[in-house]
């Protein structure tokens, strides 16, 4: 059911004062594929994710998801694309401390059409349960540990049933055991529902579980490795 193929062509992302942050000659990711992105700090990995999400300033080239060509779309259209097809996980969670786990995971009920609320809430709850998050509504995120927060962030990315998950360092602040468990859960969820996963990470445990690994260095995509 996921038919969004990613195709990136001659991409150039620029930052302030026209500085080139990232160039990608060509990249194709098939629907349902899992891809890891690695590289030194400051190489441009987060920038890559932002570009794929239609958030970065694309100076040249194309980023196409299925039929949607992000570089020609307006800001509001790209936002619409994200809320229908993309789930994003951020390195430092970016949750609302004052809300409970379910309210965070189902944050999209604030702006999605009322007809989708029930399904959204249900997916948020079931994902949180699958990810073993306790106290779904009893306490606010402020009292959650790093591992719990990361799970809530992942549940939020999945709640609106997107075809694509873009995750930035999803295991960064977790200890080994918790990180491994989370990788297992994330990969299982993604494979089960045939979602495309593109995850930036320094964690080779994560990369071992991906179909492919892309290397970024110094603002350039320098190569890729395929896992067997």
């Amino acid at each position: 059911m996921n038919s969004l193929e990613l195709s990136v062509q001659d991409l150039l992302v620029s930052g302030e004062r026209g500085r080139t942050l990232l160039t990608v000659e060509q990249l194709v990711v098939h629907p349902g594929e899992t891809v890891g992105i690695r590289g030194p700090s400051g190489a441009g990995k987060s920038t890559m994710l932002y570009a794929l999400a239609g958030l970065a300033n694309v100076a040249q080239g194309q980023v196409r998801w299925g039929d949607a060509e992000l570089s020609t779309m307006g800001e509001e259209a790209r936002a619409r694309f994200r809320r229908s097809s993309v789930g994003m996980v951020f390195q430092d969670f970016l949750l609302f401390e004052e809300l409970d786990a379910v309210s965070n995971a189902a944050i999209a009920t604030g702006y999605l059409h009322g007809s989708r609320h029930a399904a959204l809430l249900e997916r948020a709850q079931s994902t949180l349960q699958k990810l073993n998050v306790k106290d779904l509504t009893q306490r606010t995120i402020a009292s959650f540990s790093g591992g719990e927060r990361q799970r809530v962030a992942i549940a939020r990315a999945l709640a609106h049933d997107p075809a694509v998950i873009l995750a930035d360092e999803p295991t960064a602040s977790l200890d080994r055991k918790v990180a491994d468990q989370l990788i297992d859960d994330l990969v299982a969820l993604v494979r089960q529902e045939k979602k495309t996963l593109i995850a930036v990470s320094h964690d080779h445990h994560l990369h071992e579980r991906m179909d492919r690994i892309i290397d970024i260095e110094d603002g350039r995509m320098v190569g890729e490795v395929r896992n067997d």
Partner: protein
Amino acid sequence: MTDFYYDYIAPWWDLLSPDMQDGALLILYILPCLIVGFVVVRGMRPYALVKAMLWQFRWSNLVFVLLIAVSVALGVGLIAQERGLRKGTARAAEKFDLVVAAPGSELTNVLATVYLQASDMPLLDGALYHRIATHEQVDFAAPIAFGDSFKGAPVVGTTITFIDHLSGSLKEGALFGTYSEAVIGANVPLSLGDRFTPAHGHGDGADAEAHEGSEFVVTGRMEKTGSPWDQAILVPVEAVWMVHGLGNGHGLDEPSALGPPFDPATFPGTPSILVHAKQLWANYALKNAFTNKDSMAYFPGAVLSQLHSVLGNVREVMSVMAVVTQILVTAGVLTGLVILTKLFSRRLALLRAIGAPRRFLFSIVWSFAAVLILAGSALGVLLGFATTRVISGIVSARTNILVEVILSWPEFHLVAAFVSLTVCLAMIPAFLALRRPVVADLRG
């Protein structure tokens, strides 16, 4: 525009009762707020995040709400206070249709006669009193002879007709029947049967010994009038003359006669005479008849309305200041909101990143501002009402002029217009929040 009004609106408008007109105006004033609110929030559910924002910045929010409340209270209080004072002073003067006094300042005489703020006045003589009292259009003419006091309460010499006019029936006891009896105002801290000796003059300059030997006993208490007369002690005007050694104003063969008619030859004089006409329309003729080089006749109500127009002018000037305050406070609060929104910008960027429409962000920031404005305005109404009550209570206690405080349409119109205006202005921080760079804000 004016043609349109007179042709199409006025005919319908005039059919409405005053309350309905005011209600319609209120709706008109609050309408922009409702429209903006509807358009901005429609289809969005920003409440959880607004709550989060309210809680995260609770102390700044509290300060903003208080600032708005104080500025609104200022405007509301000013209007309510002025109306209360205007109505209170008018009520206190209600019974004084026409007053005759020696030529001079009407205002000074009003203050002395109606509001019992004593001052030395030239006296009117017996001949004039006689002419007034026997005028064919005069129902009664009551001398009002002030100048003495007892423990701060003015002691006023007059007639039982005047007491009847002022109070109707007594609250308790009986009218005075001899020169040593007195009727007290509703708030005078004496009881029936209490005895007292008045002092000559008022306040610190009062001479307590001057009238030694002349003692009064309280025989009755008037109904509350909501005027300074609630604090007055009323005695026969003859008694006032007697304690000053001026005789009783009657013939020598009438050593204990009480009330009119007086003898023009022995009438010692009175600073003011309250004139009550048989018919309302006669007042103007009476005023003309007794305005000449020996006396002036005036309507306390007319003097009061001049005072009220001054009061109204003062209120208008202060209203301008209140509006300026409101504008400054609003500007300050909106600037504060822009800064708070900046502190919240990472969360807003996150929402953009996960695909929330701009309108959702807009509705969060706007609703946040609107909640502060509404809370501040509601609190401001309460605060304005409360302070006005306190101030009015003090005024009432000091002057015995009953200043009642009620909130009425003008206050609500003011608040509605304020809310509508500021809620529209609250779109500015909301717009600014949309203009922030998403990726830069996401990186924090």
